[in-house]
């Protein structure tokens, strides 16, 4: 049964990883503008050769 303690430890560790990822996402500004990127992604890449 002692294995449960190790499993709990790992599950908290993994969940903590997601918490860190979330905090990183907020800090890097991903939640600042929740509209513009949805438009930006639809622009085609530039085809420079096109005249």
């Amino acid at each position, binding site marked *: 049964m002692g294995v449960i303690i190790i499993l709990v430890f790992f599950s908290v560790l993994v969940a903590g990883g997601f918490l860190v990822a979330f905090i990183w996402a907020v800090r890097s500004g991903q939640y600042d503008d929740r509209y*513009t990127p949805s438009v930006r992604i639809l622009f085609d890449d530039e085809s420079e050769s096109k005249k």
Partner: protein
Amino acid sequence: MQISEVNLKEGTLCYHCGDVCNKSLDIQSGDKVFCCTGCKTVYEILHENNLCKYYDLDNSPGISQKKLESAASSRYSYLDDPKIVTQLTSYNDGKISVSNFVLPQVHCSSCIWLLEKLYKLNSGILHSEVNFVQKTVTIKFNPNEISLRQVVELLTAVGYEPQISLSDIENKVKFRSNKSLYYKIGVAGFCFGNIMLLSFPEYLAPVGSLEHSFKQFFGLLNLVLGAPVLFYSAGDYFKSAWSGIKQRSINIDFPIVLGLVVLFIRSSFEIITNTGVGFIDSMTGLIFFLLLGKIFQSKTYDALNFERNYKSYFPVSVTLKRSAGETSIPVSNLKNGDRILIRNNELIPADAILFNGNANIDYSFVTGESIPVPKVAGEIIYAGGRQRGSAIELEVIRTVSQSYLTQLWNKDTFIKKDEDKFNSLVNIVGKYFTVVILFVAAAAFMYWYPTSLRTAINAFTAVLIIACPCGIALTNPFALGNAVRILGRKKLYAKNASVVERISKIDTIVFDKTGTITKTGDADITFNGSVLSSIEQKLIKSLVRNSTHPLSGRIYDAIETNELLEVTSFVEHSGKGIEAVIEGNTIKLGSALFAADNNKILLGKDRNSAKLDSRIFLSINGSIKGFFAINNIYRKGLEEITSEFKDKYKLVVLSGDNEGEKENLERFFNYKSTICFNQSPHDKLEYVKELQAGGHKVMMIGDGLNDAGALKQSDVGVAISEDVTNFSPACDAILDASEFSSLNKLIGFSKTTKKIIIISFVISVIYNILGVTLAFQSEISPLLAAILMPASSITVVLFTVLSTNLMARKRGL
């Protein structure tokens, strides 16, 4: 607007901005047609740089360049001033500079595309990023290659003129963010989820079957995970409860904090002494729900600005005229006696005396009235007006902050904080609630004390825990937050959730006249005098066609004839009128004195009454034919609104104008209403103050800077605006002018929301009574707490959200 077909090539729209093109101008580039040279220039810049994809993403995405007069090249010379440059850049290391600009013109995906391709237009620009919702662009550029001024000029050249105002200089453009709330909710969610997992064995296992060592391990882990939730995530509740106590009042956060702290202490005690598992799961769950409510409530309209004062409208710099020549200085440095030069479309930043030139001042900004007022040399021109026409020279008599209009902002009203003026229902309930709970908890303690101290403490803490008013605390954010969203759909944008609650309390509505209940830029024109023959109509229409004065445009639209005659020797006398010779007839249009030039005036008494409203006199070959009277057009729906309001509310109209419209206004407002004329901005503020002193809750509805004081002083200040992103003084809510007619529905809905809140309070108090009855017997199991607390929260959230939605639908919102 009616557009006569004679003038237009059928169906030709400007390739750049989509406006109708004037055939006679015939502006073309390649096979593309444009409405003005400005649009054509922008197209050519984009064409040269291979950026024409701009036009593929959306049809005619451009911004009409017609209104932008070819600005003097020195217009942005103030941006060469290193002091201003540092104030406008948020980052600078000598190689890279970063600046934020507000671009109100941003409106479609083409805008985003073009503004993020700026690096193609100038290699000095390294990167640019648009925030569509806030209508801003962040530009990273190399200051050695391109100066800030050149960046601004480049933006202007492609049709996106940045809005740079005095307030940007004085305090840098702030970008609101509630990142800390996201962190808090992240931590709370993480801990809550894990604690629930760790608590499940306790819920599911038959009593006593869970191995003892696990029980304690899970308990301690819960405690470790619960601590950051209480001390970090719930930190704002501690702060708010403490600031309440400091002001000697108890708000709703006090019983919440009390419940949370007792929960935590009792749980720690149970876990550490190994006598129980505690209620950490309920505690974290409660905090998580409360924070969710906060996020829901914090719906904000990023593109709107509710905090504007005159500084947001005033220009950054002004052209100073010295004997040595012209220099550009920041307006805050203006001193009395300075001689300044104001060009066409520039704003007058300080009270000044007209020294020289033909002043034609448009005060639409201040009063809502868009017809320019002519001024002659020697007259005082108040700050806030915009010059229309040729450049004028002024001598400053009062500095910017001491001007007639701007003095308003030195009043106490603007120093007071917002929170002071309103005591929310939830805090009043919270106060009584706390008293009752403490009393019940004490009673439980006394009741059990003879039995055993331990049971007494258990009962005491159990009451405080179970009575934690989470339901009440969740009602407000969800009911009001949802109401803000519903009102926003109907284009009434509230600054925050408490505005909805304040609207529900009002009993007096004060209207401004010009621009608020009358429509700006639209008026009803009637001709009084001898009947005009069709030839005379043609003469007038041909005459006004040549003038750019806004009144000419209105007369042009009002005359229904399509045939135009050739005009010779057209002269525009700024501030007086226009004249021309058409097919041998001398025709004059303008003020009474101008039109009747030989002074053998007029239709008798009319000369004296001519002041009361805008009249434009017409003379043909020296004889007065009559005058065009411009009557205000009242907004659609005003009649229904006033007829519905006049029994429910006290109605007041405060007009800065003279009594010319009195009779018309009295048609809408009954004898119980008050109508005051000639109100200065200060008078309006004082009037609202007086009403409040008489115990009234006042809603002020206004539009211009002259209403700013009254808007701020009132309990709810609503600014009405034709274009919500552009133009509105500081206020609590912004109403889109197109939805003026649904004002009564919106106020009615706010009142219903308050009723829903009260019902929801009752529901959560019933839950509390149920819980407290159980707690009084000192019998609460963690499982019961874990069920009862979320159950009451979820009931309250569902009830408020569903019922506000239902009520909105019922009212047709």
